[in-house]
C-alpha cells in the first residue's frame, strides 16, 4: 500500500481514503461475517492426513490487493508471451523436438524426466492446445520488478477463491465498488466453458458436452471442482461414473451412457488412465488415453503438460520464451541453481542459510527449505537430504517479496504476498482474468503463502482506467 517513501502508492489512493474513515471494529466484524459466510457455503478444504471431520477455512483477509490498469497491462503481456511459449514448447517437445536439436536445452532434462509422457509423442491435441488453463505464480520485489515463480501448467487450483473472494467483498463493501472502478472477474466460469468447448475433439457431433473430473468429495480441492462444474453448467464426474463406450468416454446417467466431448480433469497424469499409467489408480478411466489419441475426447489440460512446469526446466524458461517467440522475455525468471549440476550444487550447499530449496516435482509448499527462516538443525537435516538426491532439487535466492497490509488483531500490519493470475487458452485467443488469487503469508515475516501451510487469500483488484 505504501511506497518506498512511505507515501500511499497511487493505485491505493482511493481505497486508503475510504479506509481512513472506517472504524477498525467494523472491519473486524465484517471479517467475522466473511468467515461465517465461507463456512456456511462450505468453502473449505480438507488437509491431508487429518480427520475428515476437520475441514478448514483458508483465512480470508478483507483488505484488497490493488494493481493499477497500467501495472496489469504490463503483467498480462508478459504472461501471455510466456503462455504462448509454453504451448509452442509442448507441441515441439512432443513432435520434432527442434529445441533439443538446436541444443538450447539438454536432452537429459527431457528424456529422464518423469513428467515427460512418451505416450504423447506425435499426438495432436484438439485445437492444438496443451494448457487450456494456467495459473502463473508471480512475485513482486519492486515497483517494476515482477518475477515468475512457477508456471503451474498442470492443474492449477485457487480460481474458485478468486471468484468467491470477490463475491464476498461485493457483499460486504458494496459502497467501495460504487466508488472505485474495479475490473470484473465473474465472467471466468463462462469463459472457461467457452474456452473448453472451443477445443472439442474431432468426434464431437453437436454442442460439446463438458464435464469436470474430480477425485471425489475427500479431495482437498473438491469445493473448487464442484463450484466450477456448477458455475459452468457442466457435469461433475468421478472415474467410476465413466467408461469407454463405442470409442468414446461416456458417463453413466439416469438414462444410460452419454458421451463426453471435453473433460476438465482435476487429477494428475499418473492417475488418469490405469491401463496406460499407474495400474492401481481408482480415480481415472481405463483406456481414456487411447480414446484421446483417436480424437474421441479432449483432455484439459492435455496429458504430459507437466514437463513445461517442471522445476528443473524452469531455469530454461528464458531460453524457451526466446526460442519460440523470437523475443526477449517480458517477465523475469527467478535466478535458479540446478542442484543436478555439480558446481551449482556446491554453491547451494555453501549458501543454504540464504536460499529457498525446492523439490523438482513438489508442490503445495511441502518438502521445501526456506533457509533464512529455518533452524540450524533443519538446515543440516535438509543438507543431508540434498546431498543424497541432488538432482531432485533446485535452489533460488530468498526474494524480498512485496507486502500488503492485512487486518491483524491490533490493526493493519504488512504481510508478504504473491499473485496467481488465471489464464485461459483457446485456439483463437488468450484470456487473462484481471486480478487473480493473491495469496498471503499470515505469519509476520513469513514468505510461505501456500494454503496447505496456513497461508491466506485476499481479493485482488485491477483498477479500471
Amino acid at each position, binding site marked *: 500500500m505504501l511506497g518506498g517513501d512511505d507515501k500511499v502508492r497511487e493505485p491505493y489512493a482511493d481505497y486508503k481514503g475510504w479506509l481512513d474513515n472506517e472504524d477498525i471494529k467494523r472491519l473486524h466484524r465484517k471479517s467475522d461475517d466473511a468467515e461465517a459466510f465461507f*463456512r*456456511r*457455503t*462450505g468453502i473449505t478444504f480438507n488437509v491431508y492426513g487429518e480427520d475428515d*471431520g476437520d475441514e478448514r477455512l483458508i483465512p480470508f483477509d478483507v483488505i484488497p490487493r490493488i494493481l493499477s490498469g497500467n501495472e496489469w497491462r504490463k503483467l498480462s503481456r508478459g504472461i501471455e508471451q510466456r503462455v504462448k511459449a509454453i504451448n509452442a514448447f509442448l507441441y515441439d517437445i512432443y513432435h520434432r523436438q527442434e529445441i533439443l536439436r538446436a541444443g538450447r536445452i539438454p536432452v537429459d532434462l527431457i528424456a529422464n524426466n518423469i513428467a515427460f509422457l512418451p505416450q504423447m509423442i506425435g499426438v495432436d491435441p484438439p485445437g492444438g492446445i496443451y494448457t487450456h488453463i494456467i495459473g502463473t505464480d508471480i512475485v513482486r520485489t519492486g515497483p517494476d520488478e515482477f518475477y515468475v515463480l512457477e508456471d503451474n501448467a498442470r492443474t492449477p487450483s485457487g480460481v474458485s477463491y478468486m471468484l468467491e473472494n470477490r463475491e464476498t467483498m461485493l457483499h460486504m463493501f458494496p459502497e467501495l465498488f460504487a466508488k472505485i472502478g474495479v475490473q470484473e472477474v465473474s465472467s471466468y466460469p463462462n469463459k472457461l466453458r467457452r474456452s473448453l468447448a472451443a477445443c472439442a475433439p474431432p468426434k464431437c457431433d453437436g454442442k460439446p458436452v463438458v464435464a469436470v473430473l474430480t477425485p*471425489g*468429495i475427500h479431495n482437498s480441492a*473438491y469445493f473448487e471442482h*464442484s463450484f466450477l*462444474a*456448477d458455475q459452468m453448467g457442466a*457435469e*461433475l*464426474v*468421478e472415474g*467410476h*461414473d*465413466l*467408461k469407454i463406450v463405442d470409442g468414446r468416454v461416456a*458417463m*453413466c*446417467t*439416469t*438414462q*444410460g451412457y452419454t458421451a463426453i466431448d471435453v473433460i476438465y480433469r482435476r487429477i494428475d497424469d499418473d492417475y488418469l488412465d490405469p491401463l496406460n499409467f499407474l495400474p492401481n489408480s481408482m480415480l481415472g478411466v*481405463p483406456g481414456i488415453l487411447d480414446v484421446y489419441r483417436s480424437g474421441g475426447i479432449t483432455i484439459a489440460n492435455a496429458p504430459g503438460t507437466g514437463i513445461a512446469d517442471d522445476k528443473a526446466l524452469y531455469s530454461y524458461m528464458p531460453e524457451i520464451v526466446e526460442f519460440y517467440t523470437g523475443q526477449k522475455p517480458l517477465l523475469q525468471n527467478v535466478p535458479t541453481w540446478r542442484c543436478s549440476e555439480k558446481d551449482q550444487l556446491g554453491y547451494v550447499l555453501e549458501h543454504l542459510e540464504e536460499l529457498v530449496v525446492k523439490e523438482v516435482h513438489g508442490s503445495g509448499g511441502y518438502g521445501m527449505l526456506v533457509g533464512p527462516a529455518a533452524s540450524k538443525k533443519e538446515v543440516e537435516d535438509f543438507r543431508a537430504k540434498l546431498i543424497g538426491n541432488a538432482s531432485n532439487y533446485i535452489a533460488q535466492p530468498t526474494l524480498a517479496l512485496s507486502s500488503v497490509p492485512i487486518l491483524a488483531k491490533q490493526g493493519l500490519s504488512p504481510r508478504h504476498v504473491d499473485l496467481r493470475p488465471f489464464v485461459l487458452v483457446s485456439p483463437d485467443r488468450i484470456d487473462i482474468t484481471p486480478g487473480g488469487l493473491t495469496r498471503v503469508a499470515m505469519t509476520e515475516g513469513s514468505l510461505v503463502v501456500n494454503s496447505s501451510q496456513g497461508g491466506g487469500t485476499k481479493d485482488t483488484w485491477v483498477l479500471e482506467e
Partner: protein
Amino acid sequence: MLGKTAASLFWMARLLERTENSARLIEAGFRIALTHSSSAADEWASILASSGAKKNYLAKHEDYSSAKVIDFLLRDNSNPGSVISLIKQARDSARTARIALTREVWEATNEAWMNLKNALANPVDERDLPDVLAVIRKQSSLVRGAVMGTMLRNDGFNFIRLGTFIERADSTARILDVKYYLLLPSIAQIGTAVDNVQWETILRSVSAQRSYRWLNGSDITALSVAEYLILHRQMPRSLAFCYAQISDNLGYLEHEYGSEVTSHRLVSDICDRLLGQPVKSIFENGLHEFIVEFLAANNSLAAQIETDYNFQDRIN
C-alpha cells in the same frame, strides 16, 4: 443427470428424513420414560427396534437406561444410525450432488450439519433434550423448505422426493411393526378403546396425536389408529399418502425421460395389493403379516428405483 447424482439426491433426502424420524422416536420414548417410568425400558427397546439399531446397541450396552439409549441414538459415532452419523452422511451426499442443488438447499444442509455437530458436541443433559430434539426437527424442516421453495421441478427434485417418501413409508411401517401387538388384543372386540398411553406413543412417534384427534375426536380404536397410519390419504406420514407421492414422482420421471420403468409398475402393484383394501381386511388377514409384506415390498421398490435409474452402475 448422472446416476451417481440421482443416487446422492435420493440418499440425501432419505438420510435427512431418517434424522427427523429418529428425533421423533426419541421424543416419544423420552415422554414415556418421564411419565411411566416402569415401562421405560420396554419403550426404549421397541424404539431401538423401530430404528433398526437394537442389535448394535446390545453389542455395546447391557441395559436400556434412558441416558445410554439417548446418547447412542443421538451422538454415538460408531452407530451408523445415530443422528450425528446420519447428518454427516446426508451432508456428504449433498456435497456429492452439490451441482444439482440450489445454493439455498446446499446451505440449509450444510448448516444443519454444522448446527447439529455443535448441538451434539457433548452428552445431552435430559433438561436440554427437548430443545436439542426440536433443533434436529427444525433443521430437517429448513432443508425441506429450501427444496420446496427453490428447486426446479425437474428430475433432481423428483429423486429427492422419492427418497423422502420411501424413507417415510419405511419409518411408519417400522413403527407399526414394533407396536402392532398393542393394536391386536382389541381385534376381538372391535371398537374397544386401546390403552391410552399405548396409542398415544404410536401417534406421537409420527407427530400425529393432535391431527388424529381433530379427525377422529375422542373415538380411539385400534382399527381407526391403524387406518389413520396406513390408509389415510390426508395424513402426510401414512403409507397410502407416501405411495401416492411416490407414484406421482415416478410418473413425472417416466414422462420426462419418455420411458416406462419397472418401479412404477411395482408401485401400482403395491397400491392395489396392499393399500387398496379396507383396514378390516388387513386385520383379518393379519396386521403383522401385512406390515412384513409391506416393508419387503418397500425395500424391493427402493432397489428397483436404483436399478431403473442407474444409481449403482459401476464399471467394475
